[in-house]
């Protein structure tokens, strides 16, 4: 995307002074330290057995017990932690996929069709962008308890498939990247509206869709208040809520601390994988939201 541009920028204008270059690199080095040391500490801590954790140097390895630790975590309480991981992957993966589809369809319709009440509808959705998920957690609990559906998979899953921000991104992106002429040409070729959307528009909107997917995936993965309020049954917990509960029991059950640390490390990995594998898409998609 921008590799050529940065390359072009590099060889322009006056040579920057050594002073400002070393100043810039110093800032970069300090920030790298600040952002990476906690993650490094977590990784190192996750490789230690219980006695090494308190006695050896915190930022360097002692005996490498990472796989034993993971093995112990897998057997602890019948592998409850991995059940939580699967729950999170299901809540976030399936939830973000459905949310992306619906938000893209909605954004596309708002961008490409003229219908009565279009602007009103869009403004209501924008209002939704300004209503944070946490503010809805308690009201959602009230709704689900009216129909007796709290403490179910659906009570966490269903609210998470609505992404107003996704609609906003999809509308902007469809406006700028799906030419009317193309939709019109498909029409003349006799393609139905829905088929045009699924064959032509989604291909052009891929960067926006990946961005919406990732954004929603992270939102659901990090969501903590809604499951905290909705769920009693620990078999339904996402990993964030599970680790939170374990962490609050550390004072009563000291050996749980090791599981919290290994679990914390393992809970970061899926997001890192998602970011790295979809990187080239979302970086071009992110700019759209911020460029109006």
């Amino acid at each position, binding site marked *: 995307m921008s590799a050529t541009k940065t390359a072009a920028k590099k060889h322009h204008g006056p040579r920057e002074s050594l002073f400002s270059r070393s100043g810039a690199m110093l800032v970069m080095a300090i920030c790298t330290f600040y952002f990476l040391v906690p993650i490094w500490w977590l990784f190192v801590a996750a490789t230690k057995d219980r006695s090494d954790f308190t006695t050896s140097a915190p930022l360097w390895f002692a005996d490498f017990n990472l796989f034993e630790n993971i093995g112990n975590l897998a057997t602890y309480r019948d592998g409850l932690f991995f059940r939580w991981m699967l729950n999170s992957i299901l809540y976030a993966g399936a939830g973000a996929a459905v949310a992306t589809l619906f938000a893209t369809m909605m954004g596309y319709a708002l961008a490409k069709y003229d219908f009565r009440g279009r602007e009103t509808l869009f403004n209501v959705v924008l209002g939704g962008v300004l209503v944070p998920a946490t503010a809805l957690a308690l009201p959602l609990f009230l709704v689900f308890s009216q129909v007796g559906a709290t403490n179910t998979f659906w009570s966490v899953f269903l609210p998470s498939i*609505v992404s107003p921000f996704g609609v906003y991104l999809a509308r902007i992106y469809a406006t700028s990247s799906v030419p009317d002429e193309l*939709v019109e040409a498909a029409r003349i070729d006799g393609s*139905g509206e*829905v088929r045009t959307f699924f064959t032509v528009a989604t291909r052009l909107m891929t960067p926006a869709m990946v961005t919406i997917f990732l954004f929603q995936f992270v939102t659901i993965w990090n969501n*903590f208040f809604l499951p905290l309020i909705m769920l009693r049954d620990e078999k339904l917990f996402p990993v964030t809520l599970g*680790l939170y509960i374990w962490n609050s029991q550390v004072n009563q059950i000291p050996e749980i601390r090791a599981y919290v640390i290994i679990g914390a490390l393992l809970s970061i990995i899926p997001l890192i994988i998602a970011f790295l594998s979809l990187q080239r898409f979302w970086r071009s998609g992110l700019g759209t939201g911020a460029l109006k």
Partner: protein
Amino acid sequence: MTSNIAKPATPPKAVTKKVRRATKATNNRGAVMFFIAPFSILFALFYIVPILVAIYQSLLTVEREGTFGKPTEVFGGFVQYARVFQDEAFWSSILRVLSFGVVQVPVMLGLALLLALLLDSPLVKGKRFFRLAFFAPYAVPGVIAAVMWGFLYSPNLSPFTAITKEINFLGADLVLWSIANVVTWVFVGYNMIIIYSALLAIPSEIYEAARLDGASQARIAWSIKIPLITPAITLTAIFSIIGTLQLLAEPQVFKSFTSAVTSTFTPNLLIYSTASVPNVNLAAAFSVVLALFTFALSFTVLKFTQRKAD
């Protein structure tokens, strides 16, 4: 250029006229319904209905026949709201998150902006690595980040015991700022990426004249880049303000590390503890007031920056 982040650009009129007529045709009504129905129905069910239910619940009050009688919910008008406005713990929690935000949001966005500008300048080598390194903490959920930093702050288990034995990061005086550091650590990279994407979209020809005049990188950043990326900064500011008022996960975790974080530490913690009493009606009233407050604040920021840009 206006910084209206809420209005997608419409294509030039001449182009749309012909297509508009085609898309207005009634034979598309079915398609439009197909596209908008799924989202609209879910949005109504899980956004609008909960808000209405919360408002309704906040207008009820519980009455008992005698001390141990059966509780019944009756219409109470603004009884709960009167309680909200008299509730000192609620307003001091609002003040606490506001003071948190006044410091934390500018620090976080300032750092994000500085790093984005450095990444966009020719001063830095190894951009790819730095971009990923700074963004990595965003992959750590708030709850998990709070657990990690809880260890890093602890006087015995921290890698930095030399510091943490001397300074009590989890004490009543500092704990709010220790939490601010956790939030900053998680979100700087995320905001940096948004600002950086906006910078990448600026065509480099714009800097040509400035370069030929021998302007320094700092001068180019200040006079050309920052004005052009105001919309991106506005967007990050609004999301950050919303996040601040909604602060919940990090302080909730810190409750296990320190008694300095009380159950009324932030508005959302207070709502949670009120709801668990259970006093659902009062909790609903708190929720409504907090949501209105959040909405008003982010709307004000949006309008304020737009006026400045126009």
